[in-house]
């Protein structure tokens, strides 16, 4: 599904401050696979995400998504295939637009953004149906501005928007890190639900080691721009959070 081949990214190249963010990353993701990524600050997790999403252009290597080379495709063009949820709940939604307008923007993904009406009656029914799966009563608040929602509600909405048109790949960048524990738990369970139901290939960055081992079927550890650990199903079941923490410390 996703193939990252020999990816290299160097910041401030050939200067005193040169920093190798990604040394040589090879990562293959199967269809419907849910991978969690752990690693300390500066290990290259976010750079990897930014390269896959098109925010950064890698210096070397290839990124192939579902058979298509997207290494140099513009961010907004590849966004059609990639759903993203950010750490900051404010980043994933437009605060001064209503819930239905936000959903309409997400719903137009891949389609033409022309001069047709943004929100039709059929759209509203679809939005209500999908919102009701969140169990946050947002389906009754379609005409309210997103700025009025709490961080957890906004993050749940962002998750819904990222998967409203089924993406080929879902990128979750510490998307529960800014939420309180109970809200984080709720958003995490919503994540697992949508990913499993829709069978979406997913990569999730997290600092929560328990989440890293609990969700998905595979855990990858990054350190200094390299993959230092890559454990799958059975192997992963034997690893405890303590062991993972020790590994991270090294």
């Amino acid at each position, binding site marked *: 599904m996703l193939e990252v081949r020999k990816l290299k990214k160097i910041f401030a190249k050939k200067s005193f401050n040169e920093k190798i963010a990604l040394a040589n990353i090879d990562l293959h993701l199967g269809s419907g696979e849910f991978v969690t990524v752990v690693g300390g600050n500066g290990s290259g997790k976010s750079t990897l995400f930014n390269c896959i*999403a098109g925010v950064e252009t890698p210096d070397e290597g290839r990124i192939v998504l579902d058979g298509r080379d997207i290494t140099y495709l513009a961010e907004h063009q590849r*966004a059609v295939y990639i759903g*993203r949820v950010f750490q900051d709940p404010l980043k994933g939604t437009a605060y001064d637009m209503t819930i239905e*307008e936000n959903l309409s923007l997400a719903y137009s993904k891949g389609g033409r*953004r022309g001069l047709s009406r943004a929100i039709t009656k059929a759209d509203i029914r679809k939005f209500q149906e999908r919102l009701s799966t969140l169990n946050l009563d947002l389906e009754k608040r379609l005409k309210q501005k997103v700025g009025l929602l709490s961080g957890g509600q906004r993050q749940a909405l962002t998750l819904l*928007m990222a998967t409203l048109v089924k993406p080929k790949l879902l990128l979750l960048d510490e998307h529960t890190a800014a939420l309180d524990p109970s809200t984080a738990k709720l958003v995490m369970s919503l994540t697992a639900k949508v990913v499993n139901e829709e069978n979406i290939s997913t990569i999730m960055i997290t600092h929560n080691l328990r989440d890293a081992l609990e969700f998905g079927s595979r855990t990858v550890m990054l350190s200094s721009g390299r993959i230092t650990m890559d454990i799958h199903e059975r192997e992963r079941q034997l690893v405890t959070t303590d062991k993972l923490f020790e590994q991270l410390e090294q």
Partner: protein
Amino acid sequence: MSSYVILGALALGLIYGILSLGIYISFRILNIPDMTVDGSFVTGAAISAVVTTHYSLILVIPLAFLGGCLAGSITAFLHIKLKIQLLLSGILTLSALYSVNIRIMEGKPNIPVLQQTTIFELWGSAESQQSTSIAVLGVLLAVMFCLLCFFLNTKLGLSLRATGNNEQMARALGVDTNMTKWLGLAISNGFVALSGAVLVQYQSFADISMGTGVIVTGLASVIIGEVILSGSTIFRGLLAVVLGSVAYRYIIAGAIQIGMPPTDLKLMSSLIVIIALSMSLLHSGGIRGRRRRSGLGRNGTDFTPPQ
């Protein structure tokens, strides 16, 4: 106030209402201050004067609008393709437009259009001149208002608003934010140029310096409008801008009536905008709060708090 003054202020309010809608697009919807408008306003005016003098009156509105779109597109090009800061891009275009506008006006700094029929004289008799003008202006503003309101509720319009609201999110959802910014700046300046063109028809002359400070006029109208009518929908937001523009003209007419010299207008406009923009800061105690956060203030050495 005489009825002449009252109707005159209303007419100007409607004309500058189109300008304010344009400024609302860049300032509020795209969330970027666009300096181009001071130049594109005159571009519209110049096109209006020349087209009225030499060509057909029917072409005034479309050509002026297109001229404005072109001016906005140049600013967008400088900003998006050449990566020049937006504020500077606007200033560069504005400065260049001075020469371009003079060229459009055939080298003359002003053109009177007294001999020719204007769009306001196509209908009605000489006695009913002012009320006819207001009717024509009202229809024109209503048409532009409806077109803009419709546009901002289409899928494309929504992409434009999302770009101003949260650019990162817009891109993550597949919106080509460079395209939407360009489109927004073009349409915004199209409205501004149209406003300038209509003003020339109304006052029967075009002047190279008539654009100076229109950005402040537009901003003042937008801000006054937001005080009059708080808008949760696009329709209310746009209506507020138009009401703000008319209210602004009455404030000015009132000030002139009580003896303020017209040359002080720009000073007053700037003050209105400064006061309105600083209101939110004053409400949150922001001026003092910010000093403390920056490490100055009570315990600092370089700032002594007022007693």
